[in-house]
């Protein structure tokens, strides 16, 4: 099975629009939306949810009011500023990391830890194939663990259905959820744009892929907003040995298709759509060429 992760560093460069179109073009795949705290792929693919599951991860501490004698030890021990002392100790769930140190040392056993419900994940069917996606509750943590969870589920689903490709929509940034989504990846497709921020963030993302020894391929979206910079980005990529898969022009049909809730390649007359078809043609060759027994980089489960 091959895994291709669509990432960008900078947000809003067109990851989800691209993968929405690859969903239409690629066959025998499972789609995975790993942007679990701002998931949008379902808005393009109109999934029917087959199964919904709770996502429980980590713990939170609560104070049993009847047992607390206000000694203040928990406030002193908490490294996250989650405890305030009034008449009794009060734990701010937002700041609590669930380390359990307060509960362990409380002389009155007045602090209990309880499992924390952070979100939901879904197995869905779309007209383009199965989709595994999730929704972290707004403001929650453990995004990396949820990414790891839905990727595992997607792999199992692919194996069970004899599908040989995982197409993964990643998060912006280069931190916890992105690193979790890169585990087992055969290659990343980095979507960038010809802006100073797009380029700056791309470089950090490519450094991250190099760090984990994962092959990178680059797409320049909205390339004609600054054609000179697009050329500079291409040159910089070539210098570091990173292949450019293609360029996608700025095209209002991308926004139109998002509003209609369909992948942009479903528009026959769109310039962006034909550029994306060319990109898929190249990418599908790279996927076939990538070694089947590639040793996955060892990445721990991150929370």
């Amino acid at each position, binding site marked *: 099975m091959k895994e291709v992760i669509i990432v*960008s*560093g*900078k*947000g*809003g460069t067109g990851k*989800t629009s691209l993968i929405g179109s690859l969903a239409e073009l690629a066959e025998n795949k499972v789609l995975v939306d790993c*942007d*679990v*705290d*701002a998931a*949008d792929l379902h*808005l393009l693919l109109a999934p029917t949810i087959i199964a919904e599951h709770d996502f429980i991860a980590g*713990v939170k501490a609560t104070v049993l009011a009847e047992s607390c004698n206000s000694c203040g030890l928990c406030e002193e*021990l908490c*490294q*996250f500023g989650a405890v305030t002392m009034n008449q009794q100790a009060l734990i701010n769930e*937002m*700041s609590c*990391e669930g*380390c*359990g*140190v307060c509960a*362990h*040392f409380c002389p009155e056993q007045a602090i209990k830890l309880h499992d924390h419900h952070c979100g939901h994940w879904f197995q869905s069917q779309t007209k383009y194939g199965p989709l595994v996606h999730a929704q*972290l509750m*707004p*403001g*929650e*943590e453990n*995004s*990396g663990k949820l990414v790891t969870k839905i990727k595992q589920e997607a792999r199992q689903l692919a194996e069970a259905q004899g599908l040989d490709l995982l197409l993964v929509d990643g*998060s*912006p*940034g*280069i*931190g*916890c959820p*992105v*690193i979790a989504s890169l585990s087992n990846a055969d290659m990343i497709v980095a979507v960038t*744009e*010809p*802006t*100073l*921020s797009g380029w700056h*963030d791309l470089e*950090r993302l490519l*450094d*991250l892929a190099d*760090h*984990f020894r994962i092959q990178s391929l680059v797409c320049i979206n909205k390339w004609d*907003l*600054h054609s000179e910079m697009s050329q500079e980005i291409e040159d910089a990529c070539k210098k570091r040995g990173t292949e450019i898969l293609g360029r996608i022009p*700025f095209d209002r049909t991308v*926004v139109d298709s*998002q*509003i209609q*809730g369909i992948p942009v390649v479903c528009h026959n007359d769109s310039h962006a759509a034909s550029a994306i078809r060319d990109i898929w043609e190249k990418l599908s060759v790279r996927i076939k060429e990538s070694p089947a027994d590639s040793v996955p980089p060892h990445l*721990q*489960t991150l*929370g």
Partner: protein
Amino acid sequence: MKIAIASGKGGTGKTTLATALALAATGPVQYLDCDVEEPNGHLFLRPQLDNSEQCAVIVPQINEELCTYCGQCRDICRFSAITQFGQTVMTFPEMCHSCLGCFRVCEEKAISEQKREIGILESGRAGDILFTHGRMRVGEAMAVPLLNAVKNQAQDDHLVILDAPPGTSCPFVETVLNCDHVLLITEPTPFGLHDMALAATALNNFNIPYGVILNRAGLGDDRVQRWCEEHDVPLLLEIPFDRRIAECYARGGSLLESIPELTHQLRELLDTLQEVNA
């Protein structure tokens, strides 16, 4: 006053707006780039960065000469950062949340503090604007300790503009906590509204006041205006879609260069927020 600029969805114009607000402000102002994974504010404000320091977190180092292999450090750690096989104790520093539970639980005092670098904190000035950002080390997963180091630079006698990272999870939360007001900037598309609404749900839970700024108005449809009306959320400003703004942004130009009259509007917006929060 602390104002955070957030969005839910990435690429909707947080840094564009945050840097334009810092440039438009009339009094003492500070810009804090809280997107430590992909900081971009420096590309637009071009600060002179005079101060640079490593940011590190404390992780355990086991002194095996003192260790009795009692297993208590492994048992208290809820982040799988310590394991023990027979007479070998291993630590996984990148899993550690620095709760210090293992230090405290070890009766033999066999654990000493080791520092793990997670990134650098850089500060300086861009004209009259005080500037700080964090650059997380590539390969590092944990953004929050560095983000908090950035936030700790906040000067209470300044107007502090915090440029939040995308998303609605912990880095977003850490940025907006204890802010007086949040400006949610979005674009008139299904993705833009969907993710902004998630961020708004989180802000409702935290009781942090917020308003919406619509960027690229005219590119999509009127769903953001309708949402604001239905949810009784103030739509504070609309920035039109204009290819020239996009081209100016591409080069690292400020929004105020493309639309000079916006300076006045942003000042009025800041005045209104100061009054509301006074």
